[in-house]
């Protein structure tokens, strides 16, 4: 039988290891949640429970009716944090490598041109400050008061 070690070490060296682990964890987690909910969760049945949205939205019917404005507010709030994450991921990946630019040849011209770690940190700080101001504004406008 062929030894598995060279494949495993090659896999460990490639950049796709993380992706593979992520796929495994995601699948496992999703499966675990499904199974555990099925085993442990309380069993309630009824028309409301069988509807796709438990929030009370009728999924079938005329779309030309009034929607609660809260759906839009929640969507906008979600968007703020969603966009934040989209920007934060590449930044978080890049930032430690720029700090370690002595061992990262591709990062050296960037740092030399002025994109120092401090610059990137401040840029992300400005972005966060803007989001924070948006959040404070929403707070002061009473968006989180549901009643």
């Amino acid at each position, binding site marked *: 039988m062929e030894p598995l070690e060279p494949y495993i070490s090659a896999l460990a060296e490639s950049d796709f290891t993380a992706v593979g682990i992520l796929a495994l964890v995601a699948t496992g987690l999703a499966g675990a949640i499904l199974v555990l909910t099925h085993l442990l969760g309380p069993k309630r049945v009824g028309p409301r429970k069988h509807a796709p949205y438990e929030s009370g939205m009728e999924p079938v019917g005329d779309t030309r009716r009034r929607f609660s404005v809260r759906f839009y507010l929640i969507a906008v709030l979600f968007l703020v944090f969603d966009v934040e994450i989209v920007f934060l991921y590449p930044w978080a990946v890049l930032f430690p490598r720029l700090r370690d630019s002595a061992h990262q040849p591709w990062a050296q*011209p*960037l740092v030399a*041109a*002025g*994109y120092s770690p401090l*610059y990137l940190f401040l840029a992300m700080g400005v972005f966060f400050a*803007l989001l924070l*101001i948006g959040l*404070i*504004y929403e707070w*002061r406008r009473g968006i989180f008061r549901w009643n």
Partner: protein
Amino acid sequence: MIPTPPIPFCAVLPELILLAAGCAVLLLGHSARRNVGPGVTLVSLAAALALVIFSPERAAAGNGLLYGPLAQFVRISGLELGILLTLVNWSQARVGERGEFLALLLFSLCGLLLVGAANNLLILFLALELVSIPTYILVVLSRGSPRALEAGTKYFFLGALSAALIAYGFSFLYGVGGTAQLASSYNADGVLLSVGMVDKITSALASPHTLRFGLATLGIVLAIGGLLFKIAAVPLHFYVADVYQGAASPVAGLLGFVPKLAGFVAICKLVMLTGHWDSGENAVFWLLWFVAVFSMCVGNLLALRQSNIKRLLGYSGIAHAGYMLVGVLAGPLAGKAVATEGVGIFGNGVAAVLYYMVIYGLANLGAFAVLALLRVRDEPCETLRDVAGLVRRTPGLALLLVLAMFTLMGLPPTPGFWGKLSLFGSALTGAGLASSDGRDTAMIALVIIGVLNSALAAAYYLRVIAAVLLHENEHPARAVPGEAQQIGALLCGFLLLIFALFPNMLMQHATVATSDFIGRVGTAHQSALSAAPGWSAPPELAGNAHPTAPSLHSADADRHTTESAVPGRSEYPPH
């Protein structure tokens, strides 16, 4: 490839001031004191303006921004008009919504400043959206009537369409250009740092029957088509009258300046990519030609039938977009033969556009400011009947309205006349230089259509003036108290008078502002020549900048000084 260094922090300080002030006003919004928000807005605009005017270091580049003479012009005119807009809009929004209103005004102005500096398709798109998205909300917030809601909704949906067109067009340009950077960037020593897309787009458009040509044409046509919404030119003009009528008068005055200046600056940046001003061998000429003709005719003919002054000014805005497109067609190089003799703006279509844009913005805002200060039976003053006999009750406001109308009409002593003269003059100079494939005749035809339209437009402007001065109304309009609004309206009239007496002040700034384009066109022109061996330029087309215009890059400056000016062709304008 060496990465270009980031732009220095202090170079974007005016924009950052506007942004910070916008955030502060947003949070201060419903503070107990009513004048805090407008006061902070005014102070921040004045601080940014002082910084722009008095800061010693002006040229800067990096992060997709390029601060040259054009950005400087957009900054100064945008901030000055911004101060007037703040004064006129001082107490427009309801007290609870004043913070949002003024913050959005500041964000929109910040976007306008960034459009002037954008040197990257992505930044240009984002800046254009930063201009437009706040204006959609401003229209709705400006007054609490269902009509404003309807206007805002219409404006938003057409705006979304135009943004989609612009983004789609930009994607093709990016594909052909291979980069999103517009003009090449140099460091202080004139060493090339990164290559822009100008050369590739120009050479693609100079080689017909290739795939590159088709894609570049598609990109340019889509992007300019989307921008026609911002300047309210004909195929995308349907919203104008409804939005101007639905929005409160001060906000309608804003719509006549901020998105339009942004749109024209962006269009000039795109036309610069095509090399049209240099060789003109592309479809952009006929696209803009037909848009200009239809904008002038449709705008004026529809305005003739209006009895509502806000709708009338909306339709006249379409016609004015048409006049200004004549200047875009003529381009900054139209008068390069006469530029050395100091005639300047009469041979520089883009400078004429920038000049006219400021004058139009002032006159439009002045007219709307007068309407905002008047009430008829506690209703906003809107129709011709409402302003009838105004001169006998509030002579100051009436005279300001008359001055604004004369300026929009283009009557000789007003700055509107100098604007039209320079627009059509540059078009005639450009026609003299055009090659003889029918485009010179087309330019002369365009000028004739423009002049006829100006005469036609006098009919409806004179109707407003006649109503103010001659007619009478048993329910007269009354002036509402509002010191800030009155100061704003007064300043509009004062600036119009200043520019009537000293038109050169603004014209020189506008001419200097176009030196960016002339430098770029020169670069594009040379590479287009090397890319298309079969094509030879007529000798008149050798690039030559205005001698007094400071050039951002020493490389460009050297090129201009080594090339000799072409004498002759100075019959127009007579001096």
